[in-house]
């Protein structure tokens, strides 16, 4: 089963690159939803079946695959925008950076003192690559929605690492973390809505009234 898990992790990394290359927000949201669903399937592939596991799978797929994409999609719809325009660094450059980061994360993961049973799996490089991709999106894109997507990708990267510890994490903590993420995205959606009403745009580079004179 772990071979299949590795294939899915490769898919996660490919989705990272896809997101770096596209300007269409709806497409990015779908991509992040697919990533969320894969994250939900993965724990079932590397751990023996249990009620705890089924709960996690259902929770992650529901939150990351359905509810959160719906919330962001809603915000996009209300703000009536489709594309990211003029990111601070262009698409091709970020795509190349993303590829370099992915390669580096493989090299880095080799050096980490992993437990022997995790040595041959792709979880750690995939986690680091996804985390860095999230950072890249977060820092290079102008639109508030793209930044939320970047935050989500980053969170996905952290989750991939967390999958190594699925058995150890108490349900309450996992559920709480998911719920916090959900409410956080919900609030961000509302804030985006207000930004678009206040500034007639969700371009965060217009948010610059507050600074030191």
């Amino acid at each position: 089963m772990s071979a299949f898990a590795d294939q899915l992790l490769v898919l996660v990394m490919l989705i990272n690159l896809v997101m770096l290359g596209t300007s269409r927000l709806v497409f990015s949201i779908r991509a992040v939803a697919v990533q969320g669903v894969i994250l939900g399937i993965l724990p079932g592939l590397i751990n023996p079946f249990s009620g705890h596991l089924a709960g996690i799978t259902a929770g992650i797929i529901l939150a990351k695959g359905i509810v959160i994409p719906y919330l962001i999609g809603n915000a996009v719809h209300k703000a009536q925008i489709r594309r990211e325009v003029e990111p601070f660094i262009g698409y091709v450059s970020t795509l190349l950076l993303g590829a370099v980061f992915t390669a580096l994360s493989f090299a880095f993961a080799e050096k980490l003192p992993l437990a022997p049973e995790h040595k041959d799996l792709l979880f750690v490089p995939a986690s680091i690559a996804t985390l860095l991709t999230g950072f890249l999106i977060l820092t290079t894109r102008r639109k508030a929605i793209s930044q939320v997507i970047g935050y989500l990708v980053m969170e996905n990267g952290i989750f991939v690492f967390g999958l190594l510890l699925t058995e150890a994490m108490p349900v309450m903590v996992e559920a709480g973390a998911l719920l916090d993420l959900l409410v956080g995205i919900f609030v961000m959606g509302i804030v985006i809505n207000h930004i678009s009403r206040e500034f007639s745009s969700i371009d965060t580079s217009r948010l610059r009234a507050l600074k030191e004179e």
Partner: protein
Amino acid sequence: MLFALVLLPLIGALFAWVVPDNRLRPLTLPVVATIHLVLTALLVGNAPPPSPGGWIWLDPLGKVVLLCISLLFAVCAFYAVGYLAYRQKRSNRILCMGLLVCLSAMGLVTITQHLGLLWVALETTTVSMAPLIYFNQNARSIEATWKYLLICSVGIALALLGLLFLAYSTYVAHRDATLLLGPLMASARELNAGWFHAAAIFLLVGYGSKMGLAPLHTWKPDAYGEAPGLVGALLAGGLVNCAFLSILRVYQICLASGTEIHFFQQTLVGMGLVSMAFAAVFMAHQSDFKRMLAYSSVEHVGILAIGLGLGKGGLYGALFHLLNNGLTKGVLFLSSGNIHRSYSNKTTDVVKGALTRLPWSGGLFLAGFIAITGSPPFSPFISEYTIVSSAFIEGRHLVGWLFLLFLVIVFIGMALTVLPMVMGAPPTDTEPTDYEDRLLTVGPPFFMMAVILVLGIWPPGFLVTLLKDGAVMLGAQP
């Protein structure tokens, strides 16, 4: 009984949601806050033993933070009734609910011994405060809310990664991953050093950005500047202390490991000094007095970090300062909120002669300024003195001298903003507003100022014992 600390505010939040009347709804706050304060007093006096699983236990460190939060919230709750009477045009449902949910989450932060649960509670405080910063619903406050939400969310996500690293270090060491404080401390010496080191860094960065340690403080001036005074008070006195408690938990594990603690302490001292330096630079020529308070908060989280990083005698000072800083910031933010309402402006270009126009609020602001800059006889003087003297006792002369230097610069910078604000003649050409000092907007900060004075002159015996117990948990000599 401990669960009541979490459940009671949640019930209050539900109640606030149901009450339709905008005038009656804020009354939920003082009712919940008073019961919460009584509960806190009972629990601090006689804490129940740890829960069977070891998840829930109100230890001395939690007690100190709980005491500060509960007292500060009670004062803010009474103030809120008076404040919201002036803001009747705007629905206060979200504000009341957010405050109560945040109180519940802050309570959970103080009583839990499970780092995962602590993280969940801390993230809840972040999210529940976001709509409150946006209470004024204008372009500036939305910008502040966005920055706060994004930076704190990313910061706290990094802390989650740190927690996972910590759990993984236990997994590599003995195949049994845990995030419970007790077992973590017991097995701290066997943890995988590499993962543990990475965990400590990520946790410090994550919780540090939530606490506002420089250079991760960039959201702070914006959020504190645009939030209503009482929200600013809870951010600076409540959330900061919750984040500090999270850092204390990491500190406990580092201490138990024996090796990691040196690095952790050095980093804390370094970040603390950088915070104080940033505050000293940006405090000068600060015309917006709420932003000035934000930089003062950056300075004081720096002081907390230095106290913790010095260890030994500094620990008592840091824990005492946690309480003093929280309460004094409460006085400053509440009275500055009054001044802001009265002038409907928060820059020193317009706000002049507050002492003449608003003798009570202006006087409290001035007293708060004197206290926060570390002048006797107020309690921040004692805690700051304890920290700086411990620096010299430990032979850390450079740290001690820099600490004093930054304190002086901050004092001058802050005085240059505060003194013109409160002294002199009030402007004659400004639009008069309907705000005037009343019992409910002046009484609560006045009470808190009195508490600070009492703590400075005659700190009660039980508090001294509590702070000493807390310091011992962090490795001070008993």
